[in-house]
């Protein structure tokens, strides 16, 4: 083989790279994917923003926080919505593929709400009781002051950020095998609506047609439900931020969209949709 001229090779390689760069997707189409908890808010943001910015196309889908972050890593989405923080393993994958650590944008707050059927006599539970219920150590409602009936557990799939957050901050162990996993918070709410002995968890914005259980940090604390006030003061014990993750610092249309989400106009929609503002 004739020896290859290194300079020529390097020039060709860089030119090819630049051509690839030139064909990068147009920035005014924004793909958003991830958290089911955030999806109704993300859809509302997109809908309102596109009305006032018709040149920008925003496509929003759910699938779960884990699915959104995977899509961000493999280039299938521009924004990953997540109801949990990005894991170290996911950051490593982003580093390896894009040489960045990602950009985290806290866009709203949420109180993980405990859903009960309105027929249930129980109205208040402590974090410890919730942990034991979802671990399967408390199996009957009468153990927490309710009727003599088996507790039916409903939760999210393990690709859900809510599943991970609730496990790490409330359950603090493995979920009971009897906990039925459902695809989406709406499905959890529906299951609880139909079953008087059911308990489920999910975002506050989905809490319709069910009874919201008061939650207390421990036996000495006062129980409360997630409201703007209890979330802001930190009184409600299962409070979390909701995030948008990007590969790089936003520029152009993406930056304008993110800035708008964090503006008073975008944060007003947060409240309207049943979530809580960042500040």
């Amino acid at each position, binding site marked *: 083989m004739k020896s290859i001229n290194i300079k020529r090779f390097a020039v060709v390689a860089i030119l090819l790279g630049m051509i690839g760069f030139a064909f990068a997707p147009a920035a005014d189409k924004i793909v958003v994917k991830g958290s089911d908890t955030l999806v109704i808010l993300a859809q509302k943001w997109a809908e309102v923003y596109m009305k006032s910015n018709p040149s920008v196309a925003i496509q929003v889908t759910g699938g779960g926080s884990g699915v959104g972050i995977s899509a961000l890593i493999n280039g299938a989405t521009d924004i990953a919505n997540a109801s949990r923080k990005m894991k170290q393993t996911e950051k490593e994958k982003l580093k390896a*593929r894009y040489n960045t650590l990602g950009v985290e944008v806290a866009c709203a707050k949420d109180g993980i709400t405990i859903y009960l059927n309105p027929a249930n006599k129980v109205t208040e539970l402590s974090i410890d009781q919730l942990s034991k219920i979802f671990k399967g150590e408390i199996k009957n409602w009468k153990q927490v002051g309710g009727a003599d009936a088996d507790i039916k557990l409903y939760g999210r799939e393990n690709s859900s950020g809510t599943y991970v957050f609730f496990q790490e901050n409330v359950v603090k162990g493995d979920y009971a095998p009897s906990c039925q996993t459902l695809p989406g918070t709406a499905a959890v709410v529906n299951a609880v609506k139909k079953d008087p002995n059911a308990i489920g968890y999910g975002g506050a914005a989905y809490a319709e047609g069910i009874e919201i259980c008061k939650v207390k940090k421990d036996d000495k604390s006062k129980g409360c439900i997630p409201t703007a006030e209890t979330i802001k003061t930190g009184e409600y014990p299962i409070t979390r931020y909701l995030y948008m993750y990007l590969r790089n610092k936003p520029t152009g249309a993406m930056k304008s969209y993110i800035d708008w989400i964090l503006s008073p106009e975008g944060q007003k929609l947060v409240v309207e949709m049943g979530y809580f503002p960042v500040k």
Partner: protein
Amino acid sequence: MKKFTLIALLLVSGLIFKAHAQEATTNEKLSEVNDKVNGLTERIATDEADLQKLTKIKISGYIQGQYQMTSSPLLDAGSNNYFSIRRARVKFTYEATDGIKFVLQPDFAPGALSIKDAYAVLNDRWTKSFSLWMGKFNRPNYEVEYSSSQREVVERSLVIRTLYPGERAIGAKLEYNPTTLPLHVQLAMFNGADGLTINDRAGANINPNENKDFDNFKDVMARATYNISLGSFGGLDLGAHGYWGQMKAYNTTTLKSDYTTTEAIKFGDPIKRHWIGGEFQLFADVLGGMSLKGEYIAGMNGTTGFSGVPAGTDPVKNPAIPGVANYQNNFAGYYLYFIKNLGKKNQFAFRYDYYDPNTDITGADVAIKKYSPTDPMLKSKTSGQSDLATTTFDFALHHYFDDNLRITLDYAVVQNEKVGTPGKVVNNVNDAHGNPVVVDWSNAINQNVLTLRIQAKF
């Protein structure tokens, strides 16, 4: 009238009977449907339980098919361009419970079927910070642990390939990943001779069983890394690793890499092999993402020799066989990567890597530095090709079709340290056409390699 009343009564009773009969039929049907739904619910619950078990098994893997061209007389070996399968790996991971993981990774590359990973991990369930590994797994080092499915040039740097042949080793490892600090600490113990070829006087490998240690000495490795956030600019990972190993001596003399100093040791005593390295990885969110990564490693490597055999009573039939001294060499090596993303689909990478297997002598000394005492075991020991440093410039361009498919064009420019005196160190080889070629190491030897690789990952 009576007749009419009777007919009406009969009709009404008939309708009531029919309604009752319909109600009974509906109830029966409802009950039947209810039973079916209950049966289906039970079946779904059973299927879900089975599915739940299956979700604990994760299967991933990758295949790298490639075409390579070289103009090197040393690498030709009958063919200077060829297709090959570099990797054909499937990784099975089974997470039995939250705290236990099993990993098995065979490599199905033709002619090289082997088990690359086979280990169990026990995670501490209380602090969630410690994990204990046992089996065969990657040695703790940045480039070793960085999968070739992600690596930005086609091969690891020469210093890493030399120190950690095959990347994996059999042993145990304790990992510490505190939940509150961006710190990662690994402490491992291995058999130590994994992947090394240690020849006896007949040229046979005395370390052929990769599943068993060839001596009683164990090697210790440690690596610690710390991630520093640089805010919106990016992040910097800093780390260091060290290797403290020993190998059983099969000779009572150890020759040092200056080819002047010797050390007397007892047969069976340890020949020390130890080195330390420092590493960094800088990730910058600049113009779509770029990184700089580097590592410097220096220390002393070593290998065992073998004893001589005295002549028998009939020196013609049983002549004396000279032994070969144990050998210890001071070495140094480093690499530096520059990686730049070009949009979402393309990436450019450049790596400079350098490895000097013997820092005690230069190319000008090679083949001149020679131990001269009368000891037959040492007098033939002369510095040579294995003491020369190598520099590699590697350019690569990747195109990611999607998450699963990557195409790579890579050109490695390999440059050798030159021997001072022409004709002092030569290799007589045949080129791809079978023609004899004399490779004189006083010149720059062309060892460049062009690689076109397609990688499918799942």
